């Protein structure tokens, strides 16, 4: 394989593919895309050594808009695709991205196990507390009394899911929140996440202006968490359990070693394996 000459200084726009996004004007996902390209430029990553995997949803359309290797998989399965890629190609920088429905509902089991397995990758969930792509149904993070979906008249009456708490309990090695309303701050968090070994989870607030227009107010509600990232899971647990969903920044940094089996042959020739069968 040809090795790339890392370009001395790539700009955020160098990470864009030029394909025009399908998103609604004003959708938070535009700024997430911007933040990702800023973070990659900040780290001066060679685009060919980065892969971003997504599921299905408005947010999951992201890979096509980047100039890195991408995989637009099926609904809910971004994490296993990313896991297989990173485990077999540890040389790559691997990211996974998607929505709250993709990551916490249909893909919820993978989220838990990806946190637990702790493969070195960064997972960005663009949370708009709604299923945008299927035109506005409740998601696992939707408030119980949100009643704008025909599927759940009167609201879901079910408490929302707390992804950061689940991430901590499941063993994620890095937990942060960022917001598309602050792309520069989000880029910083993403750099932090990508640099941290193991599974990094970034809860990215990203308003759906079409089905949750009230989320435009998130801009006014988000604020920097007045704390330093903790390495103590007990402190983190308290912090995340009392969190109001609008504190931004890196909230937890663990020190568990990443899961990465060694890929080194111990036999010279595969015919060595025949020996086990010869009588």
């Amino acid at each position: 394989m040809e090795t790339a000459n890392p370009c001395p200084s790539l700009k955020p726009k160098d990470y864009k593919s030029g394909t025009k996004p399908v998103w609604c004007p004003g959708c938070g996902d535009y700024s997430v895309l911007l933040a990702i390209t800023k973070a990659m430029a900040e780290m001066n990553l060679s685009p060919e050594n980065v892969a971003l995997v997504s599921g299905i949803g408005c947010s999951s359309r992201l890979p096509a808009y980047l100039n890195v290797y991408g995989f637009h998989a099926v609904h809910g399965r971004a994490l296993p695709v990313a896991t297989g890629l990173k485990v077999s190609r540890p040389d790559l920088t691997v990211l996974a991205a998607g929505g709250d429905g993709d990551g916490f509902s249909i893909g919820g089991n993978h989220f838990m196990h990806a946190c637990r397995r702790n493969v070195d990758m960064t997972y960005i969930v663009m949370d708009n507390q709604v299923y945008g792509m299927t035109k506005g149904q409740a998601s696992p993070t939707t408030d119980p009394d949100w009643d704008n979906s025909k599927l759940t008249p009167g609201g879901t009456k079910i408490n929302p899911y707390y992804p950061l708490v689940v991430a901590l309990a499941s063993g994620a090695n890095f937990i942060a929140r960022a917001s598309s309303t602050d792309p520069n701050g989000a880029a910083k968090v993403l750099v932090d996440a990508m640099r941290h070994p193991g599974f990094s989870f970034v809860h990215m607030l990203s308003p759906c202006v079409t089905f949750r227009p009230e989320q435009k107010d998130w801009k006014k509600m988000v604020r920097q968490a007045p704390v330093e990232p903790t390495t103590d899971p007990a402190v983190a647990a308290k912090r995340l359990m009392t969190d109001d969903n609008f504190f931004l920044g890196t909230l937890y940094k663990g020190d568990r070693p990443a899961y990465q089996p060694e890929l080194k042959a111990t036999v010279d020739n595969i015919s060595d394996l025949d020996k086990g069968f010869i009588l």
Partner: protein
Amino acid sequence: MNDSTSLSSTNSKGAPHSLSIALLGSGGSGVMTAGGQLLDAAGQAGWYGMMTRSSGPQIRGGEAAALLRLSPQPVETHKGRFDILLAIDWLNADRFVGEIILDEKSIVIGDNGGTVPEAISNMGGRYVELPLSELAKSISGGRPNMVALGALAQLIGLPINALEVVLTKSLKKKGQEAIDASISGIRAGADQASEIPDIPDLKVTPSPGRERWSITGNEAAGLGAIRGGVRFVAAYPITPGTEILEWLAPNLKKVGGVLVQAEDELASINQLIGGSFGGTPSLTATSGPGLALMTESIGLAVASETPVVVVDVMRGGPSTGIPTKSEQSDLNIALYGLHGDAPHIVVAPMSIGDCLFTTQWATHLAETLQTASIVLSDQSLGQTRALIDKPADISFVSGGRSITSKAESFQRYAVNDSGVSPMSIPGMPGCQYTADGLEHSPTGTPSSRAEDHIQQLNKRKRKLDLFDYGDHWAKVSGDGETAVLTWGSSTGPVSEAISMLEAEGKHVRLISMRLLLPIQPERLVAALNGVEKILVVEQCHGAQFYHYLRAHYDLPGQMRSMAVPGPLMIRPDDVYSEVKAWENA
């Protein structure tokens, strides 16, 4: 098909000269260990053979049987009828009635003072008692299963020293004391057995110069995967596919690969897609329920043109079905289970040894054609151990991942004549693309345009249709106006039935299809040239193979379906009788 066992005959003309032995006992009695050692010793002595483990639904304990068939010639199926039944004890032995058929020529051996269940004694056979536990007790560390092993070896004329070689090797870790106890056990058993009169004679033609392998279909599939280049496996355990994974985990490690135990089958198939996207040939093994969970993402592999291999070791279905028994009833889901128009490869090994070749070939096809390959093995192939000749060393030249450096005009889904587009892997500069399950243009950009859809659909179909599968598509042998058309594990009993018919001077053609998708109409029609009667044999209640043939092939003459569900194996006698019955109808 007649469902009674009375059709069974002791007809063996034309079939390999062989001895069938059933070794029975309750959990912990060590029948599987003894059976495995008997098989290995037979291999040492230059014989061929096979051993199937049969047990009930209990996880541990319960009644278990080691079913062996030994022969100077290669054997690929059980006969159903057994020459010797040896029971270490008779607890719940009646549940094997139907699976173990005896007749007046069979020898039934039990421990002194035991009571043979009526269901077994009713079948006939000469009953002999041996003091199995008494002899075992007289030896320090002695066990009845070793006494039984010695008795069996003596009865069938297997040199005791071949057994000693095997025991010494397999008990090395347990130390000299254990070896001595076992050897004393087999000697004691052998001495007793010499007393039994009128032992049937097994003529042995040892060929010691030949390298003999002892392998199960599941192990063979694992080796085929590694030979095919597989270096990444993600999987979730399920009977009867798990042994493929158990074999692969340590062996992949040796060759620089890795097996990840995933959280479920949704994860395993998607991890493969990730591994393969990264440039590493990737495979998983499962059984029907797991295949059902994977289907959405197998479609993603097809649409995104990401090579993956899924080995389905079939068991009785639907739902959890009969997990420990074989059936060929996942054919429909493998052929038709993907949503949308999703052309892919479906292949089936036709013998235990062929699990190696077929899995290797499936990997080659997936890689070369950038698609999903499904391998339909089954419990009877996967979990049966066979003594086979050293398999041929075959290597294919895979050409799927064709991009090695930056191409100015790189289009991942370029529409071309072969239908196989250039594929880059992450790390190659200038060739970044997004693999997509959404319909896309040649560059990979999502598109819902009719023109892109038809072009990509055609391309994904064309690459499979234009490929030259050569002679590997099927095994075709014999001539005559009657043909038996079959696939997978039914090939063993069908072949033997045809040998029996041939011994009577009848000519019957055998066609066993290894390649089930894409369909091969011209090849099959050519293979059936001149045929007037086609018997379609499969282990499946719904006659899925028969209906597949009716749907896709223009076949000559009359057709008849012999579709028998599991859990009982199709026996050569059953197929023989079916052909005869049709002839005389």
